[in-house]
């Protein structure tokens, strides 16, 4: 238990509760993720993977059941505490990278640190530059996010996810929009971060080859964990 970053117990998610269109998307989800673990979440489209990822990422709340992050029961937390926990514990990597186009690549990496500190500082800039170097993009750090290739943008997104030195990175099909070479490179980068920093990863993917290179695979079918 002490090494667990994440634990879900009997987590259910129902949309449109009490309405004719009521839909139960997740049923009694139980699993835990240990510190430093690299877990793949696979399953067909519409199986509830993204909903599960949103719940784990504290972007959505379960209808019932318990979600514990680093031993803290999140059901007892208010909106401000959830935001704080999410900002300090969880990093996100999305399929479409979702970089903010108004900022340069380096500034995108600085964003989580800036939102937390309130004001820019040399330390924040240094941390972002180090992360850009870590994802091998220090030479294009000043480029606007939208002027980079898909693979580069995803690398920036990974650097941004690591900015707050989170315990857990949630990646929603991070290689889904990349060619094989870029996908392999991005996946290898995440694996490397995982090995070097001990950051836990929960990666949603359709790519079974990549899933097999993870420590563990959980398959979600029709809102239930298959194995």
């Amino acid at each position, binding site marked *: 238990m002490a090494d667990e970053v994440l634990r879900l117990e009997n987590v259910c998610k129902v949309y449109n509760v009490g309405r004719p269109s009521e839909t139960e998307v997740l049923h009694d989800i139980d699993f835990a993720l240990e510190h430093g673990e690299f877990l793949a979440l696979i399953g067909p489209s519409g199986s509830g993977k993204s909903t599960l990822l949103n719940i784990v990422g504290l972007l959505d709340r379960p209808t019932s059941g318990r979600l514990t992050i680093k031993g803290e029961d999140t059901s007892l937390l208010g909106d401000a505490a959830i935001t704080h926990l999410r900002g300090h514990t969880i990093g996100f990597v999305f399929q479409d990278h979702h970089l903010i*186009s108004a900022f340069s690549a380096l500034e995108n990496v600085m964003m989580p640190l800036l939102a937390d500190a309130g004001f820019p500082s040399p330390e924040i800039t240094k941390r972002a530059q180090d992360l850009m170097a870590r994802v091998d993009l220090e030479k294009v750090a000043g480029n606007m996010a939208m002027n980079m290739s898909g693979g580069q943008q995803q690398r920036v997104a990974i650097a941004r996810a690591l900015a707050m030195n989170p315990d857990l990175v949630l990646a929603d099909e991070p290689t889904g929009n990349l060619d094989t070479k870029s996908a392999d490179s991005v996946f290898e980068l995440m694996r490397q971060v995982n090995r070097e920093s001990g950051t836990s990863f929960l990666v949603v993917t359709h790519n079974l080859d990549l899933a097999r290179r993870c420590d563990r695979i959980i398959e979600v079918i029709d809102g239930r964990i298959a194995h």
Partner: protein
Amino acid sequence: MNRWLPFEWIAAVRFLREGRMQTLFIISGIAIGVGVIVFMSALLTGLEANFIKRVLTSQPHIQLIPPDQIARPQRNGPKVLEDAIVQRPSQRVISIDQWLKIRDRMLALPEVTAASPTMAGSALAIRGAASRAISISGVEPTSYFKIVRVPDYIVSGEARLTNQDIIIGIELAKDLGAVVGDKLNIQAASGTTMVLTVTGLVDLGNKGVNQRTTYVALRTAQSLLGVIGGVTTIDMTVQDIYAAETLAKLIEASNHVEADSWIVTNAQFFTAVQAQEISNTMIRLFVALSVAFGIAAVLVVSVIQRSKDIGILRAMGTSRGQILRVFLLQGGMLGFVGALLGSAMGAAGLIYWHSAMRLADGSELFPLILERSLFIDAAVLATLTGLLAAMAPALRAAKLDPAEAIRG
């Protein structure tokens, strides 16, 4: 990134900069709105100041006159009227009872800036074969000229009034064929005649007034009109011209005189000034409303366009309060920058209008009044309008569900 700027400012500026065209259009819209407000306000202030200056420096703010003489019916016992019809008496030229005491009492009032006694009546001005009916104002030059700036209206000669002097209107001078230095025979209704020397010609801006007006020394008028030591009016100026009517009512209530304020004697002019102010306020209000709706519309669209960015920022740990401030600041910045540009546009328009629009004699149509407070007020109000207009979109942005926003 400027290290002195907080996160919210940085994000707000970047969002506005990225949506260049959108930002440019809305700032232009705000600038035009603010420009119209600044232009109209300054123009109307100038015109109003000009009107008021013209009207209130050629007449007193409050004039005290003796109460009307009333004929009282004789009675032949209690509740019995002798005559059913009582003829209204003619109003003789009479003096204000105890005018010296009343004048001193008026001068002691903090609201009163000047008070001067006047002996007014009518007479005939005769020069050779020409004669004209005139109204005579007998005044104490030192105190009266503080109330009616006769020296400012002198177009020929000087504003000198000794016992043998007379200042006349330019039209009257034309009718009588008189110039400065000529002598006039002034004949009162009682038959008293005096020979006075024309020392100055005045132009009070109105042909009718210039045909009748004459100024003489107070003692001269008293002798001519047969009211030795008396005065028919006490003319006054007050601190707050718009409070003149209230003060007149108070004076009337505590003294045995009638008090007419310029508001009553110039009712039409005052109504016009008020109508102008109301219409100006209405125009400003509607322009401000359209500016506010413009800002709100742009920010609502911006929130929709940026919903994914908002979702990402929320996922990264940005609080609802920070998101709210990012959009409020955008509204405030749009209002402020628009106000700066609008103020410059309004001032430029006003300077151009002032130089282009001239009266027939080449003098200015209105004084150019560009008060600093007008620009400060415009900037503060436009910024507040921007903040208020941004409130609804900012709340909407802050309440966005991050999961849904990211999903799009």
